[in-house]
């Protein structure tokens, strides 16, 4: 049933984007002002824009099922699928690095905050978390770029040609929001867990606070962290659009911004569908994972 809704969601998204794209003002061709009517007609014929809207819609959906996203109208007639496949790598790498790094640091800070509840370290971590949530990641990206690349000259300003070193700054910029999110979340969960009976027992046995927190408390506090996976993905996608742009990373986000500014229909649609598919899958997986880990959810859901 869930799978059916996923498919339905994607189908609706694909249709909506298709019709929205066709409502766009202007044509997708370069220097359209200089094209004569005959040339326009030829181009339209070449790309199939002369067919009626509905016919094109059916064709588009048919091609989609075969994994064919059409051809890019702006970037040298490449198939969009190839174009995006080339750019998938950097985006995925950045996304994974950011989530891993952000969550690790965030969880660590959250545990520290919960252990020192309402004392200096807690206030410090909470302040850090709320700052991370408030400051947009493109501002962070620009600041990082200014400090570490322009002024201190430690790391490359941008581009993707310096191996791991060029991934550091974009990863840091992207990891701010997962970091803040998980820090806040873990803190709330940990405060609750640390006051439960079995933690008291561990304390009574004379176990060290640090060991209690990390090996007993954290285990239970981590489970609900899965629920923030969805919002995290969204913020990563949003962030990637502009962060990739700032650091000139050849990823999906940068391609999307370029396509938007040049009316590249098929690429815009493909990225939209890709992002939606990713989001829908993550939401789906989150639900499934949560049911596996915490059977109570299933029971409550069945009621």
């Amino acid at each position, binding site marked *: 049933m869930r799978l059916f809704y996923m498919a339905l969601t994607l189908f*609706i*998204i694909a249709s909506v984007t298709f019709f929205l794209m066709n409502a766009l003002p202007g044509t997708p061709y370069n220097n359209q002002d200089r094209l004569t009517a005959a040339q326009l007609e030829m181009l339209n014929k070449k790309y199939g824009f002369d067919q009626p809207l509905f016919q094109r819609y059916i064709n588009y959906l048919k091609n989609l099922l075969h994994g064919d996203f059409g051809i890019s109208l702006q970037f040298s007639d490449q198939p969009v699928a190839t174009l995006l496949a080339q750019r998938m790598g950097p985006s995925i790498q950045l996304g994974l690095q950011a989530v891993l790094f952000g969550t690790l640091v965030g969880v660590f800070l959250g545990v520290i905050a919960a252990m020192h509840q309402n004392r200096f370290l807690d206030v410090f971590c909470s302040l850090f978390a709320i700052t991370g949530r408030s400051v947009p990641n493109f*501002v962070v990206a620009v600041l990082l770029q200014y400090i570490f690349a322009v002024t201190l000259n430690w790391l490359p300003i941008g581009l993707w040609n310096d191996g791991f070193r060029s991934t550091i700054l974009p990863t840091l910029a992207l990891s701010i929001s997962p970091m803040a999110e998980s820090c806040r979340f873990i803190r709330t969960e940990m405060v609750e867990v640390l006051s439960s009976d079995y933690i008291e027992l561990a304390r009574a046995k004379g176990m060290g606070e640090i060991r209690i927190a990390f090996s007993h408390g954290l285990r239970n506090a981590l489970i609900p962290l899965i*629920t923030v996976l969805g919002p995290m993905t969204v913020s990563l*996608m*949003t962030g990637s659009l502009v962060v990739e742009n700032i650091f000139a990373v050849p990823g999906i986000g940068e391609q999307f*911004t370029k396509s*938007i500014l040049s009316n590249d229909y098929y690429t815009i649609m493909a990225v939209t569908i890709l992002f939606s598919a990713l989001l829908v899958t993550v939401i789906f997986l989150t639900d499934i994972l949560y049911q596996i880990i915490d059977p109570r959810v299933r029971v409550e859901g069945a009621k």
Partner: protein
Amino acid sequence: MMAYQEEIKRAASAVPDSAFVAYQPSQQEAEPELPRALSFLEDSWRKLRKNKAAVVTMILLLIITCLAFLAPALSPFDPNEQHLSWKNLPPKWPGVSIDGLNGTTLFRGRRVDSYELAKVPEGQYFLFGTDEFGRDLLSRCLWGTRISLIIAFIAALLDLSIGIAYGLFSGMKGGRTDTIMQRILEILSGIPSLVLVVLMLLIFEPGITSIILAMTISSWIPMARVVRAETLKIKQMEYVQAAKALGASNLKIALSHILPNISGIVIVRAMFSIPSAIFFETFLSFLGVGMRIPNASIGTLLNGGYKVFKLYPYQMFIPAVILCVIMLSFNLFADGLRDVFDPKMKEG
């Protein structure tokens, strides 16, 4: 029985009327006045006052909002007025001689007075400097904040109204209507809002209205969900059942019984949706699909500053700081409000 009453009458008439004196309580034994019941607002204010961060940010927000809305009166220049010979002047404050605020720039290792070089008359100060067209950045920041705040407030208001209407309707109706409306929400929430907003902006004519509309299209969904969930909960309450038994219509129940009881949660939600609207506006303008040049908004200012930030970092930093202060204040204030209105609500 009759005899007993006769008895009382007789006894009463034996006492002369003059013996009856009105009771005058002395000052000391006056009944202690009961504390007046606190109204919803008073109670909330009491709790909010205890949260220092919330109070400080509230005052800060009031100041910023006042400054922004008084922009036409406060700004020393027209925000779009260009002085081409005075371009890229660094900030200069009267009577301050710290580097960076005294109108000098570092040029080949030496501090040069840019104001002298640009032949700016003595006594002319640009507190935030000027941009690449010689426009006064202070005026542009004031006007930009104004536009960004207007967009955010209207967007939040629209979210609120649509979300409440949808959620209330879905929750009150229940049954099949509710299921269908929830399915629709589920499908809509699978669309990444950013992508949707960008697509919308490509189609509408650029401008404030289209930004607001584009943002509203995706951001009312969480509000609708919350309102529906609360409606379902409150619908089960006995006082609602009682109202129903007395023949109140669904509309009346929704407006006068359910809405007041979810107002706390709704206010908190709305407060969180303001900073996210500001974020979206700056984000879109930064990408180049939001506000159009030459109109100033925080996003366009950031975008303009970013283009020259290697040479003139102040043009980027000033709007960035303003944005961060506004975002932080709204978030902290909203956090404070949440603790007041909805202490049980879990974050997320």
